[in-house]
Protein backbone atom coordinates (compact mmCIF):
# COMPACT_ATOMS: atom_id res chain seq x y z
CA UNK A 1 0.00 0.00 0.00
CA UNK A 2 1.57 3.25 -1.12
CA UNK A 3 2.06 6.29 1.12
CA UNK A 4 -0.35 8.37 -0.95
CA UNK A 5 -2.95 5.64 -0.70
CA UNK A 6 -2.58 5.55 3.09
CA UNK A 7 -2.88 9.32 3.42
CA UNK A 8 -5.98 9.33 1.24
CA UNK A 9 -7.54 6.50 3.20
CA UNK A 10 -6.77 8.21 6.52
CA UNK A 11 -8.25 11.50 5.29
CA UNK A 12 -11.39 9.69 4.15
CA UNK A 13 -12.00 8.12 7.52
CA UNK A 14 -11.22 11.36 9.38
CA UNK A 15 -13.73 13.15 7.17
CA UNK A 16 -16.33 10.49 7.87
CA UNK A 17 -16.26 11.55 11.54
CA UNK A 18 -15.60 15.20 10.92
CA UNK A 19 -16.88 16.58 14.22
CA UNK A 20 -15.13 13.96 16.30
CA UNK A 21 -11.87 14.37 14.41
CA UNK A 22 -12.01 18.14 14.78
CA UNK A 23 -12.69 17.96 18.50
CA UNK A 24 -9.80 15.57 18.93
CA UNK A 25 -7.55 17.90 16.99
CA UNK A 26 -8.64 20.76 19.25
CA UNK A 27 -6.55 19.47 22.16
CA UNK A 28 -3.37 19.41 20.10
CA UNK A 29 -4.38 22.66 18.40
CA UNK A 30 -4.68 24.56 21.69
CA UNK A 31 -1.52 23.04 23.12
CA UNK A 32 0.63 23.90 20.12
CA UNK A 33 -0.92 27.36 19.72
CA UNK A 34 -0.16 28.23 23.34
CA UNK A 35 3.42 26.99 23.10
CA UNK A 36 4.07 28.97 19.93
CA UNK A 37 2.47 32.12 21.35
CA UNK A 38 4.18 31.83 24.74
CA UNK A 39 7.62 31.29 23.26
CA UNK A 40 7.11 34.21 20.86
CA UNK A 41 5.81 36.55 23.56
CA UNK A 42 8.55 35.50 25.98
CA UNK A 43 11.19 36.11 23.35
CA UNK A 44 9.55 39.41 22.42
CA UNK A 45 9.46 40.52 26.05
CA UNK A 46 13.12 39.76 26.42
CA UNK A 47 13.99 41.69 23.28
CA UNK A 48 11.87 44.63 24.45
CA UNK A 49 13.55 44.78 27.86
CA UNK A 50 17.03 44.43 26.40
CA UNK A 51 16.43 47.13 23.81
CA UNK A 52 15.06 49.40 26.52
CA UNK A 53 18.23 48.90 28.50
CA UNK A 54 20.26 49.47 25.34
CA UNK A 55 18.45 52.76 24.79
CA UNK A 56 19.78 53.98 28.15
CA UNK A 57 23.22 54.29 26.63
CA UNK A 58 23.97 57.78 25.49
CA UNK A 59 26.18 58.67 22.57
CA UNK A 60 29.60 60.05 23.37
CA UNK A 61 29.12 59.49 27.07
CA UNK A 62 30.85 57.09 29.40
CA UNK A 63 29.12 56.51 32.68
CA UNK A 64 31.18 55.24 35.59
CA UNK A 65 29.61 53.96 38.79
CA UNK A 66 30.83 52.19 41.93
CA UNK A 67 30.99 48.42 41.40
CA UNK A 68 29.06 47.79 44.54
CA UNK A 69 27.03 50.25 46.51
CA UNK A 70 28.43 48.95 49.75
CA UNK A 71 32.15 48.68 49.11
CA UNK A 72 34.58 46.92 51.40
CA UNK A 73 37.14 48.99 53.34
CA UNK A 74 34.83 51.89 54.13
CA UNK A 75 34.89 53.22 57.70
CA UNK A 76 31.15 52.79 58.24
CA UNK A 77 29.27 49.71 57.14
CA UNK A 78 26.45 50.71 54.82
CA UNK A 79 28.28 53.81 53.61
CA UNK A 80 28.08 54.23 49.88
CA UNK A 81 31.28 54.46 47.88
CA UNK A 82 31.40 57.89 46.34
CA UNK A 83 33.45 59.80 43.86
CA UNK A 84 35.66 62.51 45.25
CA UNK A 85 36.62 65.79 43.57
CA UNK A 86 40.10 64.38 42.82
CA UNK A 87 38.49 61.47 40.92
CA UNK A 88 36.86 64.00 38.64
CA UNK A 89 40.09 65.95 38.21
CA UNK A 90 41.86 62.72 37.31
CA UNK A 91 39.26 61.77 34.70
CA UNK A 92 39.53 65.20 33.08
CA UNK A 93 43.22 64.66 32.31
CA UNK A 94 42.59 61.85 29.82
CA UNK A 95 42.87 62.73 26.13
CA UNK A 96 39.59 62.38 24.28
CA UNK A 97 37.60 63.54 27.30
CA UNK A 98 35.64 66.66 26.53
CA UNK A 99 34.13 67.17 29.94
CA UNK A 100 33.27 65.31 33.10
CA UNK A 101 30.05 65.83 35.00
CA UNK A 102 28.40 64.27 37.90
CA UNK A 103 24.78 63.54 38.48
CA UNK A 104 23.04 63.45 41.79
CA UNK A 105 19.70 62.05 42.64
CA UNK A 106 17.55 61.61 45.65
CA UNK A 107 14.14 62.46 47.02
CA UNK A 108 13.06 65.74 48.53
CA UNK A 109 9.98 67.80 49.32
CA UNK A 110 8.80 70.47 46.93
CA UNK A 111 6.68 73.26 48.33
CA UNK A 112 4.57 76.13 47.10
CA UNK A 113 2.64 78.42 49.43
CA UNK A 114 -0.33 76.07 49.17
CA UNK A 115 1.09 72.62 48.34
CA UNK A 116 3.75 70.22 49.54
CA UNK A 117 4.75 67.07 47.61
CA UNK A 118 7.43 64.42 47.81
CA UNK A 119 9.38 64.19 44.55
CA UNK A 120 12.55 62.81 42.94
CA UNK A 121 15.31 65.30 42.36
CA UNK A 122 17.92 64.88 39.60
CA UNK A 123 20.95 67.14 39.47
CA UNK A 124 23.19 66.91 36.42
CA UNK A 125 25.02 68.52 33.53
CA UNK A 126 23.32 70.74 30.96
CA UNK A 127 22.77 67.78 28.70
CA UNK A 128 20.91 65.88 31.45
CA UNK A 129 17.88 65.74 29.15
CA UNK A 130 19.86 63.40 26.86
CA UNK A 131 20.94 60.96 29.53
CA UNK A 132 17.81 61.41 31.59
CA UNK A 133 15.51 60.79 28.61
CA UNK A 134 13.28 63.79 28.83
CA UNK A 135 12.38 66.67 26.56
CA UNK A 136 11.76 70.27 27.48
CA UNK A 137 8.21 71.03 26.30
CA UNK A 138 8.04 74.62 27.42
CA UNK A 139 10.53 77.10 28.82
CA UNK A 140 14.19 76.15 28.49
CA UNK A 141 16.81 73.69 29.71
CA UNK A 142 19.43 75.10 32.06
CA UNK A 143 22.72 75.94 30.37
CA UNK A 144 26.38 75.32 31.02
CA UNK A 145 26.48 78.83 32.44
CA UNK A 146 23.69 77.97 34.89
CA UNK A 147 25.71 74.95 36.04
CA UNK A 148 28.91 76.94 36.52
CA UNK A 149 27.10 79.75 38.30
CA UNK A 150 25.19 77.39 40.68
CA UNK A 151 21.99 79.13 39.54
CA UNK A 152 18.87 78.30 41.48
CA UNK A 153 16.74 77.19 38.58
CA UNK A 154 14.64 74.07 38.19
CA UNK A 155 12.65 72.17 35.58
CA UNK A 156 9.63 70.13 36.59
CA UNK A 157 7.76 67.47 34.70
CA UNK A 158 4.28 67.97 33.32
CA UNK A 159 2.32 66.02 35.93
CA UNK A 160 4.13 67.84 38.72
CA UNK A 161 3.41 71.20 37.07
CA UNK A 162 -0.23 70.18 36.82
CA UNK A 163 -0.37 69.25 40.50
CA UNK A 164 1.38 72.37 41.71
CA UNK A 165 -0.01 75.06 39.44
CA UNK A 166 -3.06 73.56 37.72
CA UNK A 167 -3.92 75.62 34.66
CA UNK A 168 -1.48 78.42 35.59
CA UNK A 169 1.73 78.84 33.61
CA UNK A 170 4.47 77.30 35.78
CA UNK A 171 7.33 79.14 34.01
CA UNK A 172 8.68 81.86 36.24
CA UNK A 173 6.98 80.54 39.37
CA UNK A 174 9.03 80.03 42.48
CA UNK A 175 9.06 76.75 44.34
CA UNK A 176 10.93 75.67 47.41
CA UNK A 177 12.95 72.48 47.41
CA UNK A 178 14.76 71.48 50.61
CA UNK A 179 13.81 74.89 51.98
CA UNK A 180 15.59 76.81 49.21
CA UNK A 181 13.60 78.88 46.69
CA UNK A 182 14.18 78.02 43.02
CA UNK A 183 12.73 79.49 39.86
CA UNK A 184 10.91 77.17 37.45
CA UNK A 185 12.42 77.70 33.99
CA UNK A 186 10.96 74.76 32.08
CA UNK A 187 8.50 71.90 31.91
CA UNK A 188 9.62 68.46 30.80
CA UNK A 189 8.08 65.35 29.40
CA UNK A 190 9.56 61.88 29.44
CA UNK A 191 10.74 60.66 26.05
CA UNK A 192 10.71 57.06 27.12
CA UNK A 193 8.06 55.10 25.28
CA UNK A 194 8.85 51.83 26.99
CA UNK A 195 7.95 50.20 30.25
CA UNK A 196 10.73 52.02 32.12
CA UNK A 197 8.77 55.26 31.81
CA UNK A 198 6.37 53.77 34.34
CA UNK A 199 9.28 53.28 36.73
CA UNK A 200 10.87 56.65 36.06
CA UNK A 201 7.60 58.43 35.55
CA UNK A 202 7.29 59.70 39.11
CA UNK A 203 7.22 63.44 39.69
CA UNK A 204 10.70 64.76 39.15
CA UNK A 205 12.53 68.06 39.33
CA UNK A 206 15.73 68.60 37.33
CA UNK A 207 18.38 71.16 38.31
CA UNK A 208 22.05 71.93 37.67
CA UNK A 209 24.38 69.48 39.44
CA UNK A 210 26.11 72.31 41.27
CA UNK A 211 22.83 73.72 42.58
CA UNK A 212 21.79 70.23 43.67
CA UNK A 213 25.09 69.74 45.51
CA UNK A 214 24.52 73.08 47.28
CA UNK A 215 21.01 72.06 48.33
CA UNK A 216 21.88 68.53 49.38
CA UNK A 217 25.54 68.48 50.40
CA UNK A 218 25.17 65.07 52.01
CA UNK A 219 24.03 63.31 48.78
CA UNK A 220 27.00 61.29 47.64
CA UNK A 221 28.18 61.48 44.08
CA UNK A 222 27.69 57.99 42.80
CA UNK A 223 27.76 58.62 39.08
CA UNK A 224 30.45 60.07 36.84
CA UNK A 225 29.40 61.11 33.34
CA UNK A 226 32.27 61.57 30.94
CA UNK A 227 31.52 63.36 27.71
CA UNK A 228 33.94 62.26 25.01
CA UNK A 229 34.90 63.84 21.72
CA UNK A 230 33.18 62.22 18.73
CA UNK A 231 35.15 59.38 17.20
CA UNK A 232 36.88 58.39 20.43
CA UNK A 233 37.03 54.67 21.21
CA UNK A 234 34.73 54.69 24.21
CA UNK A 235 35.43 51.14 25.37
CA UNK A 236 39.16 51.65 25.43
CA UNK A 237 38.98 55.05 27.08
CA UNK A 238 36.54 53.77 29.69
CA UNK A 239 38.85 50.89 30.54
CA UNK A 240 41.78 53.20 31.07
CA UNK A 241 39.84 55.68 33.20
CA UNK A 242 38.35 52.94 35.37
CA UNK A 243 41.82 51.46 35.91
CA UNK A 244 43.24 54.88 36.84
CA UNK A 245 40.37 55.58 39.26
CA UNK A 246 40.79 52.21 40.96
CA UNK A 247 44.53 52.79 41.40
CA UNK A 248 43.85 56.34 42.60
CA UNK A 249 41.44 55.09 45.25
CA UNK A 250 43.60 52.09 46.15
CA UNK A 251 40.76 49.72 45.55
CA UNK A 252 40.86 47.17 42.79
CA UNK A 253 37.42 46.87 41.17
CA UNK A 254 35.92 49.80 43.08
CA UNK A 255 34.49 51.46 39.98
CA UNK A 256 33.23 50.18 36.69
CA UNK A 257 31.63 51.30 33.46
CA UNK A 258 27.88 51.24 33.92
CA UNK A 259 27.52 49.47 30.57
CA UNK A 260 28.92 46.40 32.36
CA UNK A 261 26.16 46.81 34.89
CA UNK A 262 23.64 47.11 32.06
CA UNK A 263 25.05 43.97 30.45
CA UNK A 264 24.57 42.17 33.76
CA UNK A 265 20.96 43.30 33.86
CA UNK A 266 20.49 42.15 30.29
CA UNK A 267 21.88 38.76 31.19
CA UNK A 268 19.65 38.48 34.23
CA UNK A 269 16.62 39.55 32.22
CA UNK A 270 17.51 36.91 29.63
CA UNK A 271 17.74 34.22 32.29
CA UNK A 272 14.54 35.25 34.01
CA UNK A 273 12.47 35.40 30.82
CA UNK A 274 13.95 32.10 29.67
CA UNK A 275 12.94 30.42 32.92
CA UNK A 276 9.48 32.02 32.78
CA UNK A 277 9.03 30.92 29.17
CA UNK A 278 10.13 27.42 30.11
CA UNK A 279 7.73 27.19 33.04
CA UNK A 280 4.72 28.52 31.10
CA UNK A 281 5.78 26.43 28.13
CA UNK A 282 5.81 23.35 30.34
CA UNK A 283 2.24 24.12 31.40
CA UNK A 284 1.27 24.43 27.73
CA UNK A 285 3.11 21.14 27.21
CA UNK A 286 0.77 19.55 29.72
CA UNK A 287 -2.15 20.82 27.62
CA UNK A 288 -0.51 19.12 24.66
CA UNK A 289 -0.12 15.91 26.64
CA UNK A 290 -3.79 15.98 27.57
CA UNK A 291 -4.56 16.51 23.88
CA UNK A 292 -2.44 13.47 23.11
CA UNK A 293 -4.39 11.37 25.57
CA UNK A 294 -7.56 12.56 23.84
CA UNK A 295 -6.15 11.33 20.54
CA UNK A 296 -5.34 7.95 22.05
CA UNK A 297 -8.81 7.70 23.53
CA UNK A 298 -10.51 8.49 20.23
CA UNK A 299 -8.26 6.09 18.34
CA UNK A 300 -9.23 3.33 20.78
CA UNK A 301 -12.90 4.11 20.22
CA UNK A 302 -12.30 4.15 16.49
CA UNK A 303 -10.57 0.75 16.55
CA UNK A 304 -13.46 -0.77 18.49
CA UNK A 305 -16.02 0.82 16.19
CA UNK A 306 -14.26 -0.37 13.11
CA UNK A 307 -13.47 -3.90 14.25
CA UNK A 308 -15.56 -5.34 11.46
CA UNK A 309 -13.86 -3.13 8.90
CA UNK A 310 -10.51 -4.42 10.18
CA UNK A 311 -11.77 -7.98 9.77
CA UNK A 312 -12.93 -7.29 6.19
CA UNK A 313 -9.61 -5.69 5.32
CA UNK A 314 -7.75 -8.64 6.80
CA UNK A 315 -9.89 -11.09 4.80
CA UNK A 316 -9.01 -9.13 1.66
CA UNK A 317 -5.33 -9.53 2.37
CA UNK A 318 -4.32 -6.64 4.64
CA UNK A 319 -1.30 -7.65 6.68
CA UNK A 320 -1.03 -6.73 10.36
CA UNK A 321 1.54 -4.13 9.36
CA UNK A 322 -0.91 -2.55 6.89
CA UNK A 323 -3.59 -2.31 9.62
CA UNK A 324 -1.07 -0.91 12.10
CA UNK A 325 0.06 1.72 9.62
CA UNK A 326 -3.50 2.62 8.69
CA UNK A 327 -4.38 3.60 12.26
CA UNK A 328 -1.00 5.12 12.96
CA UNK A 329 -1.29 7.37 9.90
CA UNK A 330 -4.75 8.44 11.05
CA UNK A 331 -3.53 9.35 14.51
CA UNK A 332 -0.47 11.19 13.19
CA UNK A 333 -2.69 13.03 10.73
CA UNK A 334 -4.97 14.19 13.56
CA UNK A 335 -2.04 15.56 15.54
CA UNK A 336 -0.27 17.06 12.52
CA UNK A 337 -3.38 18.85 11.28
CA UNK A 338 -4.14 19.98 14.84
CA UNK A 339 -0.53 21.03 15.31
CA UNK A 340 -0.39 22.82 11.95
CA UNK A 341 -3.53 24.82 12.71
CA UNK A 342 -2.13 25.44 16.21
CA UNK A 343 0.99 26.95 14.70
CA UNK A 344 -1.25 29.20 12.62
CA UNK A 345 -3.19 30.36 15.68
CA UNK A 346 0.01 30.80 17.70
CA UNK A 347 1.49 33.00 14.98
CA UNK A 348 -1.77 34.95 14.84
CA UNK A 349 -1.84 35.45 18.63
CA UNK A 350 1.78 36.59 18.57
CA UNK A 351 0.95 39.03 15.77
CA UNK A 352 -2.08 40.37 17.68
CA UNK A 353 0.01 40.82 20.84
CA UNK A 354 2.63 42.58 18.76
CA UNK A 355 0.00 44.83 17.24
CA UNK A 356 -1.73 45.64 20.53
CA UNK A 357 1.27 46.06 22.83
CA UNK A 358 4.13 46.76 20.47
CA UNK A 359 6.04 43.89 22.00
CA UNK A 360 8.29 42.44 19.29
CA UNK A 361 6.71 38.99 19.61
CA UNK A 362 8.42 37.19 16.76
CA UNK A 363 7.73 33.50 16.11
CA UNK A 364 11.01 31.69 15.62
CA UNK A 365 11.29 29.07 12.89
CA UNK A 366 12.65 26.50 15.32
CA UNK A 367 9.56 26.87 17.53
CA UNK A 368 7.40 26.24 14.45
CA UNK A 369 9.45 23.28 13.22
CA UNK A 370 9.83 21.94 16.75
CA UNK A 371 6.12 21.97 17.55
CA UNK A 372 5.25 20.45 14.17
CA UNK A 373 7.67 17.58 14.72
CA UNK A 374 6.54 17.24 18.32
CA UNK A 375 2.88 16.99 17.19
CA UNK A 376 3.89 14.19 14.88
CA UNK A 377 5.74 12.41 17.68
CA UNK A 378 2.66 12.70 19.90
CA UNK A 379 0.60 11.23 17.05
CA UNK A 380 2.93 8.24 16.82
CA UNK A 381 3.16 7.72 20.58
CA UNK A 382 -0.56 8.04 21.21
CA UNK A 383 -1.52 6.10 18.08
CA UNK A 384 0.81 3.20 18.66
CA UNK A 385 -1.20 1.41 21.31
CA UNK A 386 -4.61 1.62 19.54
CA UNK A 387 -3.04 0.76 16.17
CA UNK A 388 -1.28 -2.22 17.66
CA UNK A 389 -4.54 -3.32 19.24
CA UNK A 390 -6.18 -3.18 15.81
CA UNK A 391 -3.34 -5.05 14.13
CA UNK A 392 -3.43 -7.83 16.73
CA UNK A 393 -7.12 -8.59 16.21
CA UNK A 394 -7.93 -12.11 15.14
CA UNK A 395 -9.46 -11.80 11.64
CA UNK A 396 -12.26 -14.29 12.41
CA UNK A 397 -13.32 -12.53 15.62
CA UNK A 398 -13.05 -9.16 13.89
CA UNK A 399 -15.24 -10.31 10.99
CA UNK A 400 -17.89 -11.66 13.36
CA UNK A 401 -17.86 -8.54 15.58
CA UNK A 402 -21.17 -6.72 15.60
Amino acid at each position, binding site marked *: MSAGEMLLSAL*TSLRANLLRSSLTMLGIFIGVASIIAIVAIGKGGQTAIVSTIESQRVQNTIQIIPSELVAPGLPQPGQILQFSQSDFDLARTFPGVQNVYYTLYGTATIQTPTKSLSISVDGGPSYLNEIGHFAVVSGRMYTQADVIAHRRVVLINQSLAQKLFGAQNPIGQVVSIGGVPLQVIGVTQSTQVNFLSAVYGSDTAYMPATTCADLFPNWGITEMDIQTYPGVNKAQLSKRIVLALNIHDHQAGAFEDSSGFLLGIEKTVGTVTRILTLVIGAIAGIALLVGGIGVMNIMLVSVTERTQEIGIR*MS*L*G*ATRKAILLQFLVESVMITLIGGGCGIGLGVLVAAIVHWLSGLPAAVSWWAVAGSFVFSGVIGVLCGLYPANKAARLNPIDA*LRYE
Partner: protein
Amino acid sequence: MIELQHVSKRYRVGPEELEVLRGIDLTIRAGEFVSIMGPSGSGKSTLMHILGCLDTPTTGTYTLRGRAVQMLSSTELAQLRNQQIGFVFQNFQLLPRMSALRNVELPLVYAGVQSRLRRERAEALLAQMGLQDRIHHLPNELSGGQKQRVAIARALANEPAILLADEPTGALDSVTGQDIMQLFRSLNDTGVTVVVITHDANVASVADRIVFLQDGQVTDDSQQSGGSQR
Protein backbone atom coordinates in the same frame (compact mmCIF):
# COMPACT_ATOMS: atom_id res chain seq x y z
CA MET B 1 -5.29 -27.79 -5.90
CA ILE B 2 -6.82 -27.82 -2.42
CA GLU B 3 -5.89 -30.72 -0.23
CA LEU B 4 -6.92 -31.26 3.37
CA GLN B 5 -5.41 -34.27 5.12
CA HIS B 6 -6.66 -35.35 8.57
CA VAL B 7 -7.43 -31.77 9.44
CA SER B 8 -8.59 -31.25 13.03
CA LYS B 9 -9.41 -28.07 14.86
CA ARG B 10 -9.71 -27.90 18.60
CA TYR B 11 -10.67 -24.92 20.73
CA ARG B 12 -10.23 -24.45 24.43
CA VAL B 13 -13.48 -23.31 25.94
CA GLY B 14 -12.87 -22.82 29.62
CA PRO B 15 -11.59 -26.09 31.08
CA GLU B 16 -12.94 -28.20 28.23
CA GLU B 17 -11.44 -28.78 24.85
CA LEU B 18 -13.88 -28.62 21.98
CA GLU B 19 -13.05 -30.53 18.84
CA VAL B 20 -14.84 -28.78 16.01
CA LEU B 21 -13.23 -30.59 13.10
CA ARG B 22 -12.17 -34.20 13.40
CA GLY B 23 -9.86 -35.53 10.75
CA ILE B 24 -11.24 -34.00 7.58
CA ASP B 25 -9.89 -35.34 4.30
CA LEU B 26 -10.94 -33.27 1.33
CA THR B 27 -9.51 -32.59 -2.10
CA ILE B 28 -10.87 -29.93 -4.41
CA ARG B 29 -9.50 -29.72 -7.94
CA ALA B 30 -9.18 -26.59 -10.01
CA GLY B 31 -12.41 -25.70 -11.81
CA GLU B 32 -14.73 -27.58 -9.45
CA PHE B 33 -18.01 -26.20 -8.07
CA VAL B 34 -18.43 -27.64 -4.59
CA SER B 35 -21.06 -27.06 -1.92
CA ILE B 36 -20.25 -27.81 1.66
CA MET B 37 -23.48 -28.54 3.52
CA GLY B 38 -24.27 -29.20 7.08
CA PRO B 39 -26.46 -28.12 9.98
CA SER B 40 -25.34 -25.41 12.32
CA GLY B 41 -22.66 -26.66 14.67
CA SER B 42 -21.39 -29.13 12.12
CA GLY B 43 -18.10 -27.23 11.82
CA LYS B 44 -18.65 -25.85 8.34
CA SER B 45 -17.80 -22.29 9.37
CA THR B 46 -14.54 -23.47 10.93
CA LEU B 47 -13.80 -25.44 7.77
CA MET B 48 -14.42 -22.30 5.73
CA HIS B 49 -12.05 -20.31 7.94
CA ILE B 50 -9.34 -22.90 7.41
CA LEU B 51 -9.99 -23.09 3.65
CA GLY B 52 -9.89 -19.28 3.56
CA CYS B 53 -6.58 -19.10 5.42
CA LEU B 54 -8.18 -17.08 8.20
CA ASP B 55 -7.28 -19.85 10.60
CA THR B 56 -4.85 -22.76 10.66
CA PRO B 57 -5.60 -26.40 11.58
CA THR B 58 -4.60 -27.75 14.99
CA THR B 59 -3.39 -30.96 13.42
CA GLY B 60 -3.28 -32.25 9.87
CA THR B 61 -2.13 -30.54 6.73
CA TYR B 62 -3.72 -28.07 4.36
CA THR B 63 -2.07 -27.61 1.00
CA LEU B 64 -3.22 -24.76 -1.23
CA ARG B 65 -1.63 -24.67 -4.66
CA GLY B 66 1.32 -26.61 -3.34
CA ARG B 67 1.84 -24.49 -0.22
CA ALA B 68 1.55 -25.97 3.26
CA VAL B 69 -0.74 -23.41 4.89
CA GLN B 70 -0.30 -24.61 8.50
CA MET B 71 3.37 -23.59 8.32
CA LEU B 72 2.78 -19.98 7.32
CA SER B 73 3.16 -16.77 9.35
CA SER B 74 0.33 -14.29 9.71
CA THR B 75 1.86 -12.05 7.03
CA GLU B 76 2.13 -14.97 4.60
CA LEU B 77 -1.47 -15.95 5.40
CA ALA B 78 -2.54 -12.39 4.63
CA GLN B 79 -0.75 -12.53 1.30
CA LEU B 80 -2.35 -15.87 0.54
CA ARG B 81 -5.82 -14.47 1.32
CA ASN B 82 -5.04 -11.54 -0.91
CA GLN B 83 -3.82 -13.60 -3.87
CA GLN B 84 -5.54 -16.99 -3.69
CA ILE B 85 -8.85 -16.55 -1.85
CA GLY B 86 -11.89 -14.56 -2.83
CA PHE B 87 -14.38 -14.26 0.02
CA VAL B 88 -18.09 -13.74 -0.43
CA PHE B 89 -19.97 -13.32 2.85
CA GLN B 90 -23.58 -13.70 3.85
CA ASN B 91 -23.89 -10.07 4.89
CA PHE B 92 -21.73 -8.79 1.97
CA GLN B 93 -19.10 -7.19 4.24
CA LEU B 94 -18.63 -4.16 2.02
CA LEU B 95 -16.90 -1.15 3.57
CA PRO B 96 -19.83 1.26 4.06
CA ARG B 97 -17.98 4.52 3.42
CA MET B 98 -16.41 3.43 0.16
CA SER B 99 -17.97 3.40 -3.29
CA ALA B 100 -18.49 0.10 -5.11
CA LEU B 101 -15.40 0.89 -7.16
CA ARG B 102 -13.20 1.56 -4.11
CA ASN B 103 -14.46 -1.64 -2.48
CA VAL B 104 -13.47 -3.68 -5.52
CA GLU B 105 -10.13 -1.90 -5.69
CA LEU B 106 -9.24 -2.74 -2.09
CA PRO B 107 -7.67 -6.22 -2.65
CA LEU B 108 -5.70 -4.67 -5.52
CA VAL B 109 -4.52 -1.91 -3.18
CA TYR B 110 -3.17 -4.51 -0.74
CA ALA B 111 -1.61 -6.37 -3.68
CA GLY B 112 0.27 -3.17 -4.54
CA VAL B 113 -1.28 -2.74 -7.98
CA GLN B 114 -0.71 0.67 -9.55
CA SER B 115 -3.74 2.95 -9.29
CA ARG B 116 -4.58 3.28 -13.01
CA LEU B 117 -4.45 -0.49 -13.60
CA ARG B 118 -6.42 -1.00 -10.41
CA ARG B 119 -9.21 1.23 -11.55
CA GLU B 120 -9.39 -0.37 -14.99
CA ARG B 121 -9.54 -3.84 -13.46
CA ALA B 122 -12.21 -2.84 -10.92
CA GLU B 123 -14.33 -1.16 -13.60
CA ALA B 124 -14.07 -4.22 -15.84
CA LEU B 125 -15.12 -6.53 -12.99
CA LEU B 126 -18.09 -4.36 -12.05
CA ALA B 127 -19.10 -4.21 -15.71
CA GLN B 128 -18.88 -7.99 -15.85
CA MET B 129 -21.32 -8.09 -12.89
CA GLY B 130 -23.65 -5.74 -14.78
CA LEU B 131 -22.98 -2.83 -12.43
CA GLN B 132 -21.21 -0.45 -14.81
CA ASP B 133 -23.64 2.38 -13.93
CA ARG B 134 -23.36 1.79 -10.17
CA ILE B 135 -19.61 2.05 -9.71
CA HIS B 136 -19.70 5.31 -7.75
CA HIS B 137 -22.58 4.31 -5.49
CA LEU B 138 -22.07 3.65 -1.81
CA PRO B 139 -23.14 0.21 -0.54
CA ASN B 140 -26.25 1.60 1.19
CA GLU B 141 -27.42 2.95 -2.18
CA LEU B 142 -27.44 -0.56 -3.65
CA SER B 143 -29.94 -3.42 -3.38
CA GLY B 144 -28.98 -6.69 -1.67
CA GLY B 145 -28.34 -8.46 -4.97
CA GLN B 146 -26.24 -5.54 -6.22
CA LYS B 147 -24.23 -5.52 -2.99
CA GLN B 148 -23.50 -9.21 -3.35
CA ARG B 149 -22.40 -8.66 -6.96
CA VAL B 150 -20.01 -5.94 -5.79
CA ALA B 151 -18.71 -8.38 -3.17
CA ILE B 152 -18.21 -11.05 -5.85
CA ALA B 153 -16.41 -8.55 -8.10
CA ARG B 154 -14.18 -7.70 -5.14
CA ALA B 155 -13.55 -11.41 -4.46
CA LEU B 156 -12.45 -11.90 -8.05
CA ALA B 157 -10.15 -8.87 -8.15
CA ASN B 158 -6.83 -10.70 -7.80
CA GLU B 159 -7.95 -13.76 -9.83
CA PRO B 160 -7.93 -16.07 -6.81
CA ALA B 161 -7.52 -19.84 -6.82
CA ILE B 162 -10.90 -20.25 -5.18
CA LEU B 163 -14.01 -18.23 -4.66
CA LEU B 164 -15.14 -19.03 -1.13
CA ALA B 165 -18.75 -18.15 -0.43
CA ASP B 166 -20.24 -18.40 3.08
CA GLU B 167 -24.05 -18.55 2.87
CA PRO B 168 -23.99 -16.11 -0.06
CA THR B 169 -27.78 -16.14 -0.42
CA GLY B 170 -28.58 -15.99 3.28
CA ALA B 171 -29.45 -12.30 3.28
CA LEU B 172 -31.25 -12.31 -0.07
CA ASP B 173 -34.76 -13.14 -1.18
CA SER B 174 -35.12 -16.43 -3.04
CA VAL B 175 -35.24 -14.96 -6.55
CA THR B 176 -32.14 -12.83 -6.01
CA GLY B 177 -30.50 -15.81 -4.30
CA GLN B 178 -31.13 -17.89 -7.39
CA ASP B 179 -29.59 -15.15 -9.54
CA ILE B 180 -26.46 -15.10 -7.39
CA MET B 181 -26.15 -18.89 -7.56
CA GLN B 182 -26.52 -18.74 -11.34
CA LEU B 183 -23.77 -16.11 -11.36
CA PHE B 184 -21.52 -18.56 -9.49
CA ARG B 185 -22.54 -21.21 -11.97
CA SER B 186 -21.52 -19.10 -14.95
CA LEU B 187 -18.30 -17.99 -13.25
CA ASN B 188 -17.50 -21.66 -12.69
CA ASP B 189 -18.16 -22.29 -16.37
CA THR B 190 -15.43 -19.74 -17.19
CA GLY B 191 -13.00 -21.75 -15.04
CA VAL B 192 -13.32 -20.23 -11.57
CA THR B 193 -13.17 -22.74 -8.70
CA VAL B 194 -16.18 -22.11 -6.46
CA VAL B 195 -16.79 -23.39 -2.93
CA VAL B 196 -20.15 -22.51 -1.38
CA ILE B 197 -20.84 -23.17 2.28
CA THR B 198 -24.55 -23.42 3.07
CA HIS B 199 -27.15 -25.15 5.13
CA ASP B 200 -29.72 -24.81 2.35
CA ALA B 201 -30.14 -27.89 0.16
CA ASN B 202 -31.65 -25.87 -2.71
CA VAL B 203 -28.59 -23.61 -2.77
CA ALA B 204 -26.22 -26.55 -2.47
CA SER B 205 -27.87 -28.37 -5.35
CA VAL B 206 -26.60 -25.83 -7.87
CA ALA B 207 -23.08 -27.18 -7.37
CA ASP B 208 -21.56 -30.18 -9.16
CA ARG B 209 -20.41 -31.79 -5.95
CA ILE B 210 -21.89 -31.70 -2.46
CA VAL B 211 -19.89 -32.41 0.67
CA PHE B 212 -21.92 -33.15 3.81
CA LEU B 213 -20.49 -32.26 7.15
CA GLN B 214 -21.75 -33.49 10.51
CA ASP B 215 -20.11 -33.20 13.90
CA GLY B 216 -16.84 -32.13 12.34
CA GLN B 217 -16.61 -35.04 9.96
CA VAL B 218 -17.35 -35.56 6.28
CA THR B 219 -20.35 -37.89 6.14
CA ASP B 220 -21.05 -37.77 2.44
CA ASP B 221 -19.25 -36.55 -0.65
CA SER B 222 -21.20 -36.99 -3.87
CA GLN B 223 -20.95 -35.78 -7.44
CA GLN B 224 -24.23 -34.42 -8.77
CA SER B 225 -24.99 -35.49 -12.25
CA GLY B 226 -27.03 -32.76 -13.87
CA GLY B 227 -27.68 -31.29 -10.45
CA SER B 228 -27.12 -27.85 -11.77
CA GLN B 229 -30.08 -25.74 -12.73
CA ARG B 230 -28.74 -24.37 -15.92
